């Protein structure tokens, strides 16, 4: 006999809330406060596919659970990569994990960057600070099928040269002739020879056709707002601008209402949204 529908739903929800144990296979220090964990499943067969822009709920045993976007290559199913900035209780303890350590993981959750919808068009990726991590899988997917897209531009801003993530990879991307990479910092050390200025200042001169471009923005919401305004000024319709939103989460699967804003569940309906849908919410403080 099948269980009553409400029981079936409750069981599925409870299953969805149970983290699986994953092993830390590699730890990489990216900057003074940011680190990358490469995770492998403890139980064979737990490998999973994800789409660029999705996140996992990572559980640091005995401390707590936080949503962290996947920052690795979507074609690699045998490992999951997360890049995290240590800002508080959970992420600080997570930053102390060593190779061979264990972490709880459930996911992937959330809406992806609309990479397929960007085919045949220019793609502009704008990242601020840790925001490069959730965008990196989208760039991997685009580069994997580079010929399906027109101009591809990455604009990346950080506070200082020391805060730049994935430096070696950025160098490799910059050396490609089919990718335009522009990095800027708020404050350059005397040895810094690159751009100085906020990332929004790169938008006006970036090589893309605003009438046939799709933009993905990831970073703190103040940065998102000003970048979207610059893109709009350049002529990109806001329906073609997509952003990833961050709100405090508990369940991550649309059950608890913790991430809800004016009827929008960031965990389930997002985190990636067309900017036109959430422009009013981006200015709202969390309650």
């Amino acid at each position, binding site marked *: 006999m099948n269980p009553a529908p409400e029981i079936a739903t409750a069981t599925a929800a409870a299953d969805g809330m149970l983290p699986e144990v994953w092993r830390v296979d590699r730890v990489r220090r990216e900057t003074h406060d940011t680190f990358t964990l490469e995770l492998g499943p403890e139980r064979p067969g737990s490998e999973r596919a994800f789409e660029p822009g999705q996140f996992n709920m990572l559980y640091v045993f005995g401390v707590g659970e936080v949503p962290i976007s996947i920052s690795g290559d979507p074609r690699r199913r045998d490992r999951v990569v997360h890049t995290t900035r240590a800002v508080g209780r959970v992420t600080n303890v997570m930053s102390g994990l060593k190779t061979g350590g264990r972490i709880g993981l459930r996911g992937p959750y959330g809406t992806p960057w609309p990479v397929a919808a960007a085919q045949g068009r220019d793609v502009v990726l704008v990242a601020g600070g840790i*925001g490069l991590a959730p965008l990196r899988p989208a760039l991997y997917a685009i580069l994997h099928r580079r010929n399906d897209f027109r101009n591809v531009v990455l604009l990346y801003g*950080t506070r200082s040269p020391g805060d730049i993530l994935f430096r070696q990879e950025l160098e490799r991307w910059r050396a490609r002739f089919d990718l335009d990479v522009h990095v800027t910092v708020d404050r*350059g050390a*005397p040895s810094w020879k690159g751009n*100085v*200025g906020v990332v929004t200042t790169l938008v006006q*001169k970036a090589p893309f056709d605003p009438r046939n471009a799709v933009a993905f923005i990831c970073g*703190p*919401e*103040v940065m998102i707002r000003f970048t979207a305004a610059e893109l709009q000024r350049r002529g990109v319709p806001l329906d073609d601008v997509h952003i990833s939103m961050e709100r405090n989460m508990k369940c991550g699967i649309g059950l608890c209402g913790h991430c809800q804003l004016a009827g929008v569940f960031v965990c389930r309906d997002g985190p990636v949204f067309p900017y036109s849908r959430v422009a009013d919410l981006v200015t709202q403080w969390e309650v």
Partner: protein
Amino acid sequence: MKTLEQLLAEHPFFSGLAPDHLKLFAGCAVTLRVDSGEFLFREGELARSFFVVRHGSIAITSVTPQEGLVTIQTLDEGDILGWSWLLPPYRWHFGARALEPAALISLDATCVRTKCEHDHEFGYEIMRRFAQVMASRLEATHLQLMNVYESRT
């Protein structure tokens, strides 16, 4: 070889400018090349000209007691450099130094100011365009000061 008027007309700052106004500008302009590391001007000096960046990258610099010379902004192709020449006491608030060999057009400040006084329509056009540049630089500076990449919302 292109005339100064043609070079100015290609630059976004002058786009859509009436031909007679372009001619007035060209009468105050000379082309200029600087080498990497060379200063166009230093903080506190008299602002005798302003610049149109054609190629290359220019650092706007300031001297701080702790760090020495720091770059607060970089400008490149398509940018306009300097507005201290517009308002008394006509002294540079910052320095400007080439980060790589750069090609510019230098506009003589006294020459442009005199033409603004004689032709107010021309003067208004310049002020309007500079106001736009200043507003977007101010917005960018606000964001830099807010430390946007590390804020939560």
